[in-house]
């Protein structure tokens, strides 16, 4: 029996514009084995957060993901607020909810376009990205930037929504609803789309549980894991979300779930704009956060986003940990790829809506001599000594240090 042909995909541009490497072993056209190597995109975000103040960290956390920037900063703010015992005003929670749903809209529209592009359906890509622009323009108007809206701050939101913006939101929603209904109809009836997406990248209900997949991947297999429903927070304690699930368990199912979720988001946005109470938009937050630790989860467009925060009573966090939803979805990827055709690999990868840089949290180097765990200070000393031997003295370089 032949060994099969092994084809490396990536680390440059493997279906999406971020680095990751796949080693695909083929048996004819069928993927026999898939090896996924993450770790090209480690940015040291968590360490950076630990050496800056809580306020400065807002803008680092916002940049964990280029799409779900609100979900991450919302989770982080909720961590800090809970530790500091702050009660955010209701109006702030409504604004956060509106921005969160707008983010879900633009994220799912982006995904639909990327999925179209991966299967060679570029017309769909152009249309959805055109519609996504309208959401981004709206977000720029609300927050001041297209992607890093910076709406969240510790204790509430930074900007209020006036009547003009609310009206504009409703107008855009009317236009979008029409478009998204058209995409929903397209997904139901366009033969090429269905033929290309149905029956590939299957992750059944049992597999979802086994690999711990989250978000639309889990919901497409019939598991309702939407944090807004299973553990309502913020505005969702008052406004009920109608969850979307599907039973196809394949890439097609994930497409259907995302399209239906967009329609649900539009409904929620309209409701939130209508029901938004008057009042203040933020409360004063202390600079020093009381000692404690906390885990918070929110529903990002890609699924459950988990943040952990530990405070030591200073104005800088002691530990920040981000578990982005893509990280949970990677574990089932090998299973999703194996057994399907090589031509389906890009769309199967794209179907979890992966974010590689969100995923890279830590790098572990293994050596034959055994692993050791080194703390930050001794790591720095070792580095300085090593460079001194090479004739360079880096000890003068100023460094931000963590803690007090």
């Amino acid at each position, binding site marked *: 029996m032949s060994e099969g042909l092994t084809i490396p995909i990536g680390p440059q541009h493997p279906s999406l514009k971020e680095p990751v490497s796949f080693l695909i072993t083929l048996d004819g056209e069928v993927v026999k084995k898939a090896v996924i190597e993450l770790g090209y995109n480690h940015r040291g975000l968590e360490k950076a957060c630990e050496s800056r103040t809580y306020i400065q960290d807002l803008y680092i956390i916002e940049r964990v993901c280029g799409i779900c920037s609100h979900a991450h900063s919302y989770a982080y703010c909720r961590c800090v607020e809970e530790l500091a015992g702050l009660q955010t005003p209701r109006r702030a929670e409504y604004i956060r909810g509106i921005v969160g749903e707008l983010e879900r809209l633009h994220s799912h529209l982006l995904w639909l376009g990327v999925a179209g592009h991966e299967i060679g359906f570029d017309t769909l890509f152009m249309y959805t990205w055109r519609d996504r622009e309208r959401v981004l323009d709206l977000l720029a108007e609300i927050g*001041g930037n297209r992607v890093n809206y910076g709406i969240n701050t510790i204790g509430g939101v930074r*900007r209020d929504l006036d009547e003009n913006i609310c009206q504009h939101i409703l107008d855009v929603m009317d236009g979008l609803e029409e478009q998204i209904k058209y995409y929903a109809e397209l997904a139901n009836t366009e033969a090429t789309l*269905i033929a290309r997406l149905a029956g590939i990248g299957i992750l059944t209900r049992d597999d979802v549980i086994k690999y711990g997949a989250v978000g639309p991947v889990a919901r497409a297999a019939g598991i309702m894991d939407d944090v807004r429903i299973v553990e309502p927070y913020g505005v969702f304690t008052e406004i009920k979300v109608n969850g979307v699930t599907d039973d196809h368990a394949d890439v097609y199912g994930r497409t259907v779930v995302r399209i239906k979720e967009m329609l649900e988001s539009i409904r929620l946005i309209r409701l939130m704009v209508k029901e938004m109470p008057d009042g203040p938009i933020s409360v004063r937050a202390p600079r020093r956060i009381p000692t404690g630790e906390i885990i918070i989860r929110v529903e990002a467009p890609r699924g459950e986003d988990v943040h952990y925060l530990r405070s030591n009573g200073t104005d800088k966090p002691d530990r920040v940990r981000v578990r982005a939803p893509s990280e949970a979805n990677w574990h089932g990827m090998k299973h999703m790829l194996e057994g399907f055709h090589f031509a389906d690999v890009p769309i199967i990868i794209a179907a979890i809506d992966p974010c590689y840089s969100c995923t890279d949290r830590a790098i572990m180097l293994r050596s034959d001599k055994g692993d050791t765990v080194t703390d930050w200070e001794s790591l720095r000393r070792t580095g300085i000594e090593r460079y001194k031997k090479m004739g360079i003295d880096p000890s003068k370089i100023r460094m931000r240090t963590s803690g007090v």
Partner: protein
Amino acid sequence: MKKIKKIFIPGKIVARAITSAFKKPATIKYPKSKPDIAPGYRGRLIYSPTNCIDCMMCMRDCPTGAITIKNLGTKENKEMHAYLNIGRCIFCCQCVDTCPKKCLSFSQDIMLSKLNRDNLTIEL
């Protein structure tokens, strides 16, 4: 898992594609026509030194260390200047929110590119 049984005729999107061909494009010809910048868009900062008390809170809260406030005069006779490294600034406007005297604000000026790295530090 559900199997999709119905057979559909492909090319449903063609009708819309044809009508779109006769519509105005959604994109603009940049840089010939200028992009639409929302009124609240965060661009280049504006500094008004009159009320500045040199408390340096803006510098402390800036996540990137992009802004510097300097008093070039004496303690009694203040002459305040603000410098911004636009290569570092992420236009988050935390400094605007932080300033207790409302000395900082933002404009919608986003045309900030320079040909030389040294020119990236500008006086506000």
